[in-house]
């Protein structure tokens, strides 16, 4: 039975946007925590920490996000947890975001001139105070634009969660298309919704970049 593509279908797709947003928010929040830990480990004095962080980044940047989703999804069953698409997608995307944000933030931390660390050290500030008050505030200015840029990637990346059966925006489109068989119309609608989410963020990232360039050349 093929039914027509109705306003109810459009509403169904639009409502699925919230799951895309929820998944993106969870992954971004988790990725921010994980990414900060990875970035600090990557720039640490301790070799073991640096190596662990480097390995973590290599693994998650060197494998497809889809494989990471599969491994976490089926891995949950292997360790005896019930299969839960939202949990699996959230965990996989968090790990993925941790690796990428960790690498972005490592670069930002290393972009702060070493004289800043030296001056803070000479003033007897310990590691935590140095990071919190001297290094990270400066690294943040470098990091904001690429971080927002990565957030756009992450939102688009959540579409892969459709493959493990999590009903976010893309999966909602597939469901509607299976019933209506209007792929161009359906996925066109889906694409426009992704664009509406991502475009403002891309603009914001570009604006931040320009502003930062101006701040540096001041």
């Amino acid at each position: 039975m093929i039914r027509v593509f109705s306003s109810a279908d459009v509403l169904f797709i639009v409502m699925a946007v919230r799951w895309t947003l929820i998944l993106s928010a969870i992954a971004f929040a988790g990725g921010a925590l994980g990414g900060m830990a990875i970035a600090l480990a990557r720039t640490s004095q301790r070799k073991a920490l640096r190596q662990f962080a480097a390995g973590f980044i290599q693994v998650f940047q060197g494998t497809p996000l889809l494989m990471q989703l599969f491994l976490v999804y089926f891995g949950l069953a292997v360790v005896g947890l019930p299969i839960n698409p939202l949990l699996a997608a959230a965990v996989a995307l968090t790990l993925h975001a941790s690796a990428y944000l960790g690498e972005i933030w490592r670069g930002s931390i290393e972009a702060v001139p070493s004289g800043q660390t030296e001056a803070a050290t000479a003033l007897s500030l310990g590691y935590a105070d140095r990071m919190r008050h001297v290094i990270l505030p400066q690294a943040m200015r470098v990091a904001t634009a690429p971080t927002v840029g990565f957030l756009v990637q992450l939102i688009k990346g959540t579409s892969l969660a459709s493959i493990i059966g999590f009903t976010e925006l893309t999966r909602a489109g597939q469901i509607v298309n299976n019933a209506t068989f209007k792929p161009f119309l359906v996925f066109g609608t889906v694409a426009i919704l992704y664009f509406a989410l991502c475009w403002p963020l891309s603009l914001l990232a570009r604006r931040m970049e320009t502003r930062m360039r101006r701040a540096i050349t001041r």
Partner: protein
Amino acid sequence: MSEHAIIMRGVNKYYGAFHALVDIDLTVERGERIVICGPSGSGKSTLIRTINQLETIQAGTITVDGVELTAGGENVAKVRQDVGMVFQNFNLFPHMTVLENCILAPMKTRKIPRAEAEATARKFLERVRIPEQAGKYPAQLSGGQQQRVAIARALCMKPRIMLFDEPTSALDPEMVKEVLDTMIDLAREGMTMLCVTHEMDFARAVADRVIFMDKGVIVEENAPAAFFDSPRNERLQNFLGQIA
């Protein structure tokens, strides 16, 4: 309180295979003002950077104010509180105002309340003659002003010893004097100072002792008059001939 400000015994420092400091023995008395000069790469900056352990050493001992520096220990933090440092490139924190630059370390490491830290900071900014710049950011100041802020920031920790690592080398010529005058004031107040600098007039005016280093070795040390007027070592004679 120990009677010597700094005692270095048999200090050796390597960067890989490069021998940066060779058997350094140096004793600095309280209130003594020492100028260290020498060709670039001679180890003079490295020498003063070992005193607050910005550089670690591979052999020898360094005792600062009776506290022996041992790698990574609590002693290091204690010594750093008592030893102020001024860098060639100022290294002010660009995202903080002048006042915030000055109060950060006293509040965090000496646990001084903000109001008191600010009062101290304003007093030292007055002393380096830039009290009106307290609310500005480093980028809004000239190089000479930034370096004076850096001196004030170090003084806010109430150090007993001040290290200067080529403090005027990055400055435009017309700003050198204002920084040197600030340092001369400090010397007159009896601060123990070690200055790496090529400002020989400054050395003549304030130094109790001038040290010449070459290839990681202290080659000659003497009172300024003898150091400049009758240098014994040939390398020092050449060096003085070049910079005169």
